[in-house]
């Protein structure tokens, strides 16, 4: 018998936990940057279309797959997908639903630990009196494991371990007393902090506190539609990619959370509520903080340069702490606590979700109790995460993010949409979605889930596999299909790194690039080994089930 007897405490708690799973750092750091880089207000059109025809269907698919698997006592994707078709190979596709979470948690918890550390640094006034370069240098020193202003040796490692211990302890408390309780506290606080900062983002006035632009300049820059970009496949690919990141679909976490819902209870309305809550945090709060505040003080050109050179992460950690202090020392510190506090809550509600599939798997298949299962997750993430901490500047962090946090989501989502609509069968799938539903799902979604969602996912996958240089699809279709360095094929070939290596003349640069190439390849091997190890565990679990007559 499985040791897994968990339940959610309340329906609102489940929705907040699901929304917390979806709401992550990307809502505040990635979405506004994607919008700026892909046509501003025009980006929102493909973004919302992708949400309606890919995001919502995937939410329903994953919620109903999870609840269906839960009926048979499965709480992780390998055996959830195994129940949906007799072909025994499906469970190895389900390995993605554990592997992705472990690999993503390994670098995500490190990122989360930055936010925790920056909350304390904001409280302690570490950024007070620093200019923009000073705040940026603080970040460089931090990730390079340099000397800490707190005097803590190897401060990033210290906070990483604290963060992992916190995650592990909460996970060991169980769903209702751990994960759900954090969501019930974290999500309302996140929204309150976000609303305060969004209010500040909306009320910047040129000439006050050193601002050079009104809020409207930043908001117009973000939202003014550039309709020339509307028909660009690159923009649509970016919009579809953002929907993946933001909803946490294709990861296996939604399946896991939903597997604790009984079949007579609603999932259709729950999925909509959690999904739209995530959209509120992203489109309303996320779009109103980073870019409007930055443009208010640094101007459009300055922010565009920063976005192109540092991305949203750089802007959030290297620039915003400095800008908050333009509002005065006290408000600067409070805003810093709120900004990094909301990022921390966004992070921890997601990283907790990443732990549950592994714990569910060990409980279901090997009769582990919750506590040792949770601590095993913490230990694995510590071991896998240390390379991202120690070799952050050698591309290990980015490598984990690309393969586990980007490519894997699309691959798993593509497989699960085909499994649900074509293998399990759309009629059965529809009955699963509608079972116990508190809303009437429009019938058009039967067609969308069967045809539009898988085709869109296939297009996203192929588009990412063979992205043409500079995103110039026109030139590609006219016969000049040169692959971009961001395409999956060129990533596998390390084209960008090899070209930089060929062009480099400085021995120090050459050495750094050679080291980077080594660590990039080593991290890929590590990720493959982890995947194969989980697949081997799934095979052992299957054999155990056969021995016990459970299959």
């Amino acid at each position: 018998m499985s040791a897994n007897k968990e339940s959610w405490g309340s329906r609102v708690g489940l929705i907040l936990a699901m929304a917390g799973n979806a709401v992550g750092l990307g809502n505040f750091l990635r979405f506004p940057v994607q919008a700026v880089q892909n046509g501003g207000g025009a980006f929102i059109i493909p973004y919302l279309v992708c949400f309606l025809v890919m995001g919502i269907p995937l939410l329903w698919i994953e919620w109903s797959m999870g609840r269906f698997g839960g009926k048979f006592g499965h709480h992780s994707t390998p055996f959830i997908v195994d129940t949906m078709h007799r072909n025994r190979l499906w469970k190895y596709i389900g390995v993605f639903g554990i592997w992705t979470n472990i690999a993503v948690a390994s670098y995500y918890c490190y990122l989360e630990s930055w936010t925790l550390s920056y909350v304390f640094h904001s409280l302690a006034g570490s950024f007070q009196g620093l200019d923009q370069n000073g705040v940026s240098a603080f970040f460089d020193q931090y990730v390079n494991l340099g000397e800490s202003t707190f005097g803590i040796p190897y401060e990033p490692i210290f906070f990483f371990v604290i963060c992992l211990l916190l995650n592990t302890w909460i996970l060991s408390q169980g769903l209702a007393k751990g994960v759900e309780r954090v969501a019930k506290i974290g999500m309302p606080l996140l929204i309150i902090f976000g609303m305060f900062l969004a209010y500040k983002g909306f009320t910047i006035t040129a000439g006050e506190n050193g601002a050079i632009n009104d809020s409207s300049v930043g908001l117009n820059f973000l939202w003014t539609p550039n309709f020339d970009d509307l028909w660009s496949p690159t923009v649509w690919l970016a919009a579809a990619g953002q929907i993946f990141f933001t909803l946490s679909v294709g990861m296996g976490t939604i399946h896991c959370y939903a597997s604790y819902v009984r079949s007579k209870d609603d999932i259709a309305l729950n999925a909509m509520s959690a999904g739209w809550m995530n959209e509120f945090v992203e489109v309303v709060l996320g779009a109103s903080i980073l870019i409007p505040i930055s443009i208010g003080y640094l101007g459009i050109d300055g922010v565009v340069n920063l976005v192109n050179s540092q991305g949203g992460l750089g802007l959030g950690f290297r620039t915003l702490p400095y800008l908050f202090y333009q509002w005065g020392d006290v408000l600067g510190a409070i805003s810093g606590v709120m900004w990094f506090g909301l990022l921390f809550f966004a992070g921890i509600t997601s990283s907790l979700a990443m732990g549950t599939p592994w714990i569910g798997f060990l409980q279901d298949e090997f009769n582990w109790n919750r506590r040792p299962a949770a601590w095993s997750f913490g230990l694995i993430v510590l071991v896998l995460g240390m390379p991202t901490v120690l070799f952050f500047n050698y591309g290990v962090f980015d490598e984990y993010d690309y393969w586990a946090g980007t490519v894997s989501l699309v691959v798993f989502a593509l497989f699960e949409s085909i499994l649900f609509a074509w293998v399990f069968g759309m009629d059965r799938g529809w009955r699963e979605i509608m079972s116990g539903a508190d809303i009437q799902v429009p019938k058009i979604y039967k067609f969308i889930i069967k045809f539009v969602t898988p085709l869109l996912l296939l297009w996203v996958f192929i588009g990412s596999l063979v992205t043409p240089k500079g995103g110039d699809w026109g030139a590609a279709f006219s016969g000049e299909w040169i692959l971009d360095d961001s395409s999956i094929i060129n990533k596998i070939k390390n084209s960008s790194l090899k070209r930089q290596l060929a062009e480099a003349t400085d021995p120090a640069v050459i050495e750094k690039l050679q080291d980077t190439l080594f660590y990039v390849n080593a991290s890929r091997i590590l990720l493959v080994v982890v995947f194969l190890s989980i697949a081997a565990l799934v095979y052992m679990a299957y054999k155990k089930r056969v021995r016990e007559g459970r299959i």
Partner: protein
Amino acid sequence: MLSTMLLVTGATIYFFIRVLNAPPKPEPDSYLDNDDELERQAPRA
């Protein structure tokens, strides 16, 4: 901008209120908090 933000905020509030106002299902359901609510217990056969 405002119309998009209002649409998203409106949809979020609408679905959340639908959840809060959804008629409760008889026990046993998926949630621990309702376990002791007598009016939610399914009638015994």
